């Protein structure tokens, strides 16, 4: 079973790398936020997978719970912050 979880974790990392493109190149700040949020929710699954690979699920599950909470709070705080900013439109292509 270890090989299954290992390959699943590798595949999940590749999927996260795909999402990273949107977080880096998204035309607006909110697109980047979508990318980061998607990476965060995949990280929760990734943490439990790592726990299964190292046979320490009971430890990594706690980290996953904390990460899920943090991801939610981070998205809420970031979207409330950018609501009051003018940075939401297409960013000017300087430098």
């Amino acid at each position: 079973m270890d090989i299954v979880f290992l390959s699943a974790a590798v595949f999940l990392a590749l999927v996260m790398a795909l999402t990273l493109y949107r977080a880096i190149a998204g035309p607006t700040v909110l697109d980047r936020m979508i990318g980061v949020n998607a990476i965060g929710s995949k990280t929760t699954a990734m943490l439990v997978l790592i726990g299964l690979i190292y046979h320490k699920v009971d430890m990594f599950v706690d980290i996953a719970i904390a990460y899920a909470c943090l991801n939610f709070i981070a998205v809420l705080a970031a979207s409330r912050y950018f609501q009051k900013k003018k940075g939401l439109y297409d960013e000017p292509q300087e430098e």
Partner: protein
Amino acid sequence: MLDILVTLLLILGLVFFLGGSIGILRYPDFYSRLHPAGKLDSLGLLLTMSAMALYTVGQWNLGAVLAAVKIMLIVVFVFITSPTATHAIVDAGVRAGMRPWTRSKEGSEHDLAA
């Protein structure tokens, strides 16, 4: 037997995760990108997490069962918070006055500011 079920659920969940990522890359504008981001990820998380909880509970001791309950607790938490987070992002976009992309460039029938 349990291993086959766990593997199938895991693969199914990973397919949904892949769909979410491809959707985030392919859809034309910010509003439609939220559809795969908020929901395909939730279902993918549900499927992968239930696969892992099933595998964990297969070992049958108290610690394993508690870990499985915690994994399902994460799923419940994500199913409550993920729509809320999606709504927060949409709200930020609406207040900034972003227009949704429509196919027939004539704008949407209802004004967003209403």
